[in-house]
């Protein structure tokens, strides 16, 4: 990763972290404050991104929405990755039959497309943030798990570990010094790629009315509300849409800079 890329990535992450943790620093207003008289204001000096149907400031809402959207994306990815590390490591280190069994489970998870899986879970649990996280997490897990598995298997057979054996390193030292850090590095790249996608899927669920309930300023829910007024107030859906694109594209760029390949998704 080049120096500029590093600085830009860190700035990008810092910006969104700040936005998510202390949105009031960037947008001091109340994202829920209504003002029907000010509904459907065009973007301008008073309202940078315009206002929505209840006169809420879209800019404030987009900024405050970062927390929910990113939280769902990060939580879902963390869940998927956690599950993937457990399953992938288990598969890589297990005897063949168990490896096969875990692979089938992963394939079963894979065989139900992510949004379908989310809907399936929601069919059982009802809508909400929790099910959205579980759904997106579960459906991303098999992709990560396969990577973890192949990564560990490759590493196990690698010359690097052979060399460590030859140098007289014990099993614990090999796992701690070489296996884990080297297996984690590509995962880190993939996680950044994955968070972007998880944000999109979570937004899709909110868009379908099955994720974060309004009036919380989650981006997908804002888009969902905005699409009704697409003819009248394009800014209501443009800006949350842009926020999703910026986060997902930025995450992809960072992931790629970290050496991640889309391949493993």
């Amino acid at each position, binding site marked *: 990763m080049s120096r500029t890329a590093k600085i830009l990535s860190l700035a990008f992450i810092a910006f969104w972290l700040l936005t998510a943790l202390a949105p009031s620093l960037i947008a001091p207003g109340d994202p*829920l*404050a*209504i003002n*029907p*008289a000010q*509904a*459907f204001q065009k973007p301008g000096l008073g309202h940078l991104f315009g206002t929505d*149907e*209840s*006169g809420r400031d879209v800019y404030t809402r987009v900024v405050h929405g970062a927390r929910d959207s990113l939280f769902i994306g990060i939580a879902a990815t963390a869940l998927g990755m956690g599950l993937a590390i457990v399953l992938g490591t288990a598969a890589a280190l297990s005897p063949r039959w168990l490896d096969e069994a875990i692979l089938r489970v992963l394939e079963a998870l894979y065989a139900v497309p992510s949004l379908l899986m989310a809907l399936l879970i929601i069919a059982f649990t*009802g*809508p909400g943030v929790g099910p959205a996280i579980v759904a997106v997490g579960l459906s991303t897990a098999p992709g990560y798990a396969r990577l973890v598995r192949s990564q560990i298997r490759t590493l196990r057979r690698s010359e690097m570990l052979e060399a460590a054996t030859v140098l007289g390193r014990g099993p614990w030292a090999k796992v701690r010094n070489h296996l884990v850090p080297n297996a984690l590095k590509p995962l880190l790249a993939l996680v950044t790629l994955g968070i972007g996608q998880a944000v999109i899927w979570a937004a899709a669920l909110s868009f379908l*009315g099955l994720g974060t*309930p*309004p*009036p919380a300023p989650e981006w997908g829910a804002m888009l969902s*509300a905005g*699409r*009704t*007024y*697409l*003819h*009248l*107030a394009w800014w209501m859906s443009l800006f949350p849409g842009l926020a999703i694109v910026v986060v997902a594209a930025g995450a992809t760029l960072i992931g790629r800079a970290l050496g991640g390949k889309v391949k493993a998704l």
Partner: protein
Amino acid sequence: MQKNQRAARVLSSALALGLVSAVLAGCSGTDTPSTADATAAPSAGGTLVYASGDAEPSCLDPHVGGNYPQALVSSQYLEPLFTKDAEGKIIPWLAESTEVSQDGLTRTIKLREGISFTDGTKLTSEAVKANIEHLQDPKTASSTGYLAVGKVKKIELPDELTAKLTLSAPDNALLESLSMPWTSIESPKALKRDQAANCAAPVGTGPFKVESWEHQKQVNLVRNEDYVAPVPEAGRSQQTAYLDGITWRFIPEAATRYAALQSGEVDVIDNAQPDTISSAAKDNALGHLDAPRPGASNRIELNSAKAPFDNAKVREAFIRSLDVNAGISSLYFDTAKRSYSLLSSVEPLGISDEALFTTDVAKANALLDEAGWTERDAAGYRAKDGKRLSVTFPVSTNQSVPAEQSLFQQFQASAKAVGFEVKIELLDLSSWYGALAKHEYNLVSAPYTKVGPSVLRILYHSDSTVPAPSGYFANNAQVKNDQLDKLLTEAEQTSDEAQRADLYAQAQKIVLEGYYVLPLYDQQNHFLYGKKVQGMGATTTVSSPTYYDVFLAK
């Protein structure tokens, strides 16, 4: 169980056709409200493409279940026994005449001669019996129609065209009930088929018939070439419909539906959104039909059986804290008129009282103080004995359009100012019914469409607080008032029109003044149509448009 399950609805405009809803089904002669050049002579031919935003019905026979989307489509191929004239008076349609016995317990209906179903079966009194029995058969699983004919105990057929209905109690709403699409008359021969076949293609007497149903996409209707109008219209070039057919499509996305109308892919859309109605008004190419539904107005009910709304002061405080008008005017672009009534504006017996609902934040605060909600918690909400003043508001996403959901969010924000915490829960229909059945609500908005003021009995009689075996009850406000019960029962049984109006007025006053209900506006029912479409305007008694008079300009 039916209350009216509309999948999505819209707001209304002050424009063009505000009055059209009073026009009767098919019985026109009334001028169709018109787009710029409504003077073109009717010409036959062409297929109209209709785009519905409602969920696709699972059955095209409105006897089964019985919701508004079914009413919309079935009005094209089924006809009821009665309808309303331009003044809102019930008149016979498939029936020729009717009379009721002195005690109000025997209703005789005489049918017109010379009308046939599209399967060739003649319309006879046998059909009336078969249809009412079909509605009452539990296997049909009718909810709306079932309630409508609930008092019919026995049906005798003195001759081929006469049916004699024996009732369990006098019912002055029976004719209104029999004017609704959910009690339309179908071919008795066709009703004998299994339910799946009947659902796929019900057989009626209407100007169109069901040709085929491409699930999830469209229902194809074609002209009934043998149509006989029960009340013939003078001056028509033909007695059958002008259109060759109607393609009845399902396009759930409001924006897509409107885009398709703009680009001319479809000719008529329902569930038009407020903003599109308002922009269509500026667009000379598009016509607008505003047809508020009859029955109850759209309103929020406050559950008086549960704290904190068991206290009338708290109910009033909640209602006074809201600035309803500002929200409606901005969200609905002045397409929806504020209502202060329990009943739709098309119901002549409805009464209004604006003074009860004016916004008064100071009074709201005072009332809450009086009711003992004097503490304030960390989040700024009022509390009593450490308990927060919190109310739950389950909202069915199937029954609430985006503008309405936004309105509720605005209520949430303004109620917070006086110390209410309103928890809006957006639920799918199934979970929403579940929440209601379990009494997990303090506020609820449940529209109910029915012709006539007898809807008041269904909604506010204490009997309606008793759940049906399925858990459903219609009295969501949980009003239990002996005097009210008495008024509602009497109103339904009297044969004196003036007395009926007076009894219903007294009943409405009790409900309104008890702050059980916050009326919002009529049940919105807006249609937009393209320039080619001429002759739009006629509707059924439940305000669903009919297309007998409609033609496409060349």
